[in-house]
């Protein structure tokens, strides 16, 4: 599943731009993945300039709880 480390995130929106599923919600200083849309395609992981987003290959079900 995809997880974001908010403390490291710059909220730049590169991940939102690349996401083919419109599955990332970005506000001024908060970011979250919309679980039911995410397909774990990993494009956001590659796009993140700061290596803030990680992909953990431990199940492709709900990403709930990944963002805290």
């Amino acid at each position, binding site marked *: 599943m995809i997880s974001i480390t908010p403390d490291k995130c710059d909220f730049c929106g*590169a991940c939102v731009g*690349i996401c083919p599923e419109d599955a990332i919600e970005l506000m*001024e200083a908060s970011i979250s993945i919309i679980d039911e849309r995410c397909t774990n395609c990993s494009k956001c992981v590659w*796009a993140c300039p700061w*290596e803030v987003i990680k992909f953990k290959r431990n199940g492709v079900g709900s990403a709930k709880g990944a963002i805290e």
Partner: protein
Amino acid sequence: MRTSYDLIVVGGGPSGCTAARYAAVGGASVLVLEKDREIGIPVRCAEAVNQSGLIQFMQPDPKFIAATVTKFKMVAPNGKVVQPVLEGVGYVLERRIFDAEVARLAAMEGAEIVTKAYVYDLLKSNGKIEGVKALIKGERVEIHSRIVIGADGVESRVGRWAGITTNPSIQDLESCAQMTLGGIEVEPDALYFYLGQDYSPGGYLWVFPKGKNMANVGVGISVDVAKKKSAISYLNDFIKKKYPHAAVIAQIAGGVPCATTVKPLVKENVMLSGDAAHQVNPLSGGGIISGMIGGMLAGQTAANAIKSNSLDRLQEYEDLWQKRLGNRHESFYNIKSVINFEDKILNKIADDVLQIPDEKRTMGAILKSAMWNKPSILLDVAKVYLI
């Protein structure tokens, strides 16, 4: 703030505020909604523009200019520096002040601007788009409008909600990291571009001066390349080597859509401009002026459509943009797609170009030299530099 406007612009960057400015000039009632608390902050930009582009919109003012640049230097992998002849001058801006100034110009024409206003959906009724849903200072509100312009940046969602595909391919999104460094030696009047595998495979690393002893140092690489090594990793390697003792004044991340323009640019009563529409020069990644031109054309078209009470006229924006910059960007895109040179070819081009006398070493001459190595770019170079 009212409950209904002719036009709502989502995003208060230079493109959105320029759209608002020209729509207001044309007599439309306009509301700009900006998700952050302050226009211009945070800066996500290398901040360089050319003078000829800027003066279409405003007079250069020292309050938003950090440096005036007259030189453009490209560093080949072997360290050789090529300096093409430049016409005119460029500026490295203070975007936080510049953006506020662009917003002020819109406000002077009567546009309303609200910050900390996050648009989370389009307002739809019977399948028709009738405005936006926004979270303004924590409160959910619905605001009606006849037209919506999505100037909501690389992270644009307005287009998607209207049914336009706006996400670039992994080849075309540039993943960027930048640090503003202080206490370093810089040439205060030169833009530096470092090319090659060590700096930025297929892209470039930039050092743009911001006055004395300060510069924006950044790198952009396509997401396809970033799979293997991230932008911040390339940037850290360079800074460690070149400026190990620098003070870090700012650090930012960002994405730049280096693609051709989004198609369609208009769907029913929704228009896109700026990064949201990929109105960026795909070769250089520069998008301040081109985004403002897109915003101006979108705003003017919106005002004309309101005035003539014919939203069908919004379609005119596609053609206006295509003629003004869209076709040119397509040529730049074609060049970008084929000039991902290996280091030894970049070195050879630098050597060849350095044989050309200084005064004849133009950007066109450099691309001509590149052409000997990739003849397929001939037509596009000709389109950009001859027509």
